[in-house]
């Protein structure tokens, strides 16, 4: 499914950096340089239980020989974060692909960056902050979490002084998004990562801001697990024109599931980039995982790239 090179990396360090948050350092066996990356990038992990998980890189982009991720032990973990917390040990080998970037830190030199992080959503934001700081871009961060103890990297962030506003829920309640975002600010880009409730609220308030203001990375819907769960969940696809219904299994693409049922949809890249398999959606809400569609097309849900995208509803009816 992916053209990114597969890397076998060694766990060279592990630490509990907050309640329920474990950071992992990874490096090549010979400690040689790793592929470079930009703020917002993530790695795709193949876990021994067959699951695939995505975790944001949070170390320095200039650190050429190691990657760092931080993983929250999700209360209703589907197994990914539990494995990373309880089973992985320093010296173990893991298979990853990437780095990839769906959340680039795209900002003009005269623009301000407003970062909003919820919980483990701080991970992709950290490298963005370092980049903004290094390039002299005006920035500020509002970082919310359940409690100080649960919030990773607080110590690092305190060095930045008043640019950083820490909002532990047990002391200060929720982030006051109304005050923060109620009035559109000129020349400001908003970068947000966190649980879906926070993202939904931010998205709602940013509607009155200029188009292109908001950049966000969404975790799996309704989950605190930082994994994107690319291949989690089964759903039904109805091929309307062919009159065929099939189940799309865990780890299976819609095109593969349709292929099993004898319906061949031409594909080319099979990674959500080229658009060959763009298909009209008659009913149901797509969970877009592609890199091609624009925001309006994404929101309308009228078409989807069925080599990678999945479903937010139990059923999708497609024009195939």
């Amino acid at each position, binding site marked *: 499914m992916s053209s990114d090179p597969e890397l076998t990396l060694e766990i060279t360090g592990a630490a509990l950096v907050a309640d329920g948050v474990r950071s992992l350092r990874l490096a090549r066996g010979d400690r040689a340089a790793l592929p470079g990356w930009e703020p917002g990038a993530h790695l795709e992990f193949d876990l021994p239980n067959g699951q695939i998980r995505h975790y944001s890189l949070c170390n320095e982009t200039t650190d050429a020989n190691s990657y760092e991720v931080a993983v929250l032990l999700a209360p209703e973990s589907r197994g990914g974060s539990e494995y990373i917390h309880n089973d992985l040990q320093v010296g173990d080998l893991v298979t990853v692909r990437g780095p990839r970037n769906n959340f680039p830190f*795209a900002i003009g030199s005269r623009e301000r960056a407003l970062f909003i992080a919820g919980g483990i959503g701080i991970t992709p934001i950290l490298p963005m902050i370092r980049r903004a700081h290094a390039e002299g871009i005006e920035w500020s961060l509002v970082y919310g979490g359940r409690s100080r103890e649960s919030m990773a990297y607080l110590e690092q962030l305190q060095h930045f002084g008043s640019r950083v506003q820490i909002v532990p829920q047990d002391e200060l309640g929720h982030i006051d998004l109304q005050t923060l975002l109620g009035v559109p600010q000129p020349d400001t880009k908003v970068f947000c990562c966190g649980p879906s409730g926070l993202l939904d609220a931010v998205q709602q308030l940013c509607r009155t801001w200029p188009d292109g203001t908001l950049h966000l990375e969404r975790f799996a819907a309704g989950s605190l697990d930082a994994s994107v769960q690319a291949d989690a969940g089964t759903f039904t696809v109805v091929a309307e024109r062919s009159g065929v219904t099939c189940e799309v299994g865990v780890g299976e693409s819609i095109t593969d599931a349709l292929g099993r049922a004898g319906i061949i949809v031409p594909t*080319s*890249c099979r990674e959500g980039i080229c*658009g060959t398999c763009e298909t009209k959606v008659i009913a149901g809400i797509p969970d877009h995982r592609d890199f091609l569609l624009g925001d309006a*097309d994404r929101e309308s849900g009228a078409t989807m790239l069925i080599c990678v995208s999945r479903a937010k509803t139990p059923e999708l009816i497609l024009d195939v």
Partner: protein
Amino acid sequence: MNTSLPPAPLTKSELDIVLEERLSDARTLPADAYLSQEILDWERKNLLEAAWVCVGRSSDVAKAGDQKAVRVGTQGVLLTRDESGDLHAFYNACRHRGHELLAVGQCANKKLVQCPYHAWVFGLNGELRSATQFMDTENFNKEEWPLIEVRSVEWFGWIFINASGDAPEFSEWVGNLTEVVAPWDPTDMVIGESHSYTLKTNWKTVIENYLECYHCPSIHPELCRVAPPESAMGLHQTGMWLGGGLEFRDDADTNSLDGRSGGDRIAGISDEQARWTLYFMLAPNLLLTLQPDYVMTHRLVPLSPGETWVECTWYFPREVAERPGFDPSFAADFWDITNKQDFAACESVYQGMLTDGYRPGPFDEREDGVRAFQAQLATAYLTGRWEKPLQISLGASHVV
């Protein structure tokens, strides 16, 4: 591009007479300059592609991922807006087998530029991102196959393209027009209304008609009601533009059927500037009209020697256009009437040029703008180059 021979079927003597030192000795261009397909082909290559051509408004590609394919001379150009808000322009041809990335005239919003033929995909900045199933070929390096960039610039919210790559810098091309337009600052103005017209005439007749008001008493009763043609005066220019002004009558505030404005005076302009309509022809294809309360453009695209597409657009300050109940028709109705009067005249001139009796004619002093434009063309036909136009007065005793 330099040539001592004018493009067939024009002759040097026919062009030299356009360039006569004294206006009264000069004559208009010959009919073939308007009627010949060969001349239009030459103009597309040597006048349009070698210039900074206006292809539309920045808001046509406003958001990250917006893409639009446009025509400049004979060239197809793809415009994109990237994630940082920067505009890019590329030749509209895939680096693989040359398929157009988007059909000319079409728009898209995608995070990538996608060639529909073999599904090659490029970033909004032109870099090749994926040549599907091509990557295993040895010696294939994605970095060697980016889209080929074309020069582009944004000026007060309009997009200009230089397809040939060798026009003077845009700042030199527009010269002092930037200072002249600055008080209106159309950058953030929004489009209140836009009409497009397909005229059965050559593109140059539309520009020539715009450059003189000698015809105003004969065909523009509405315009003469708000501005006396005898108030015309020329503007001092240092770029590839010609311009002049008409002063409003004391009882008129703007160009509308009753002389009243349905908007607000533009914040940046002076009391004196609010008394005038300023008309500019920015070579080769943009007519820009500044008024006390709104801005208007005519953007020209030649379709054939006898057919021209004209887009007329009215722009208003955002706070005016977004006011509940705002109605741009006070401006659009006035100009729609005036446009149709002008366009009928231009189409009729073309019919006259098609007769065997058409001969180059003389210029009145009020038509020194037409002469200056034709002299620019005659010089270009002779040398292959755009030269700055002659200073004009439009018949006034002085130039401002």
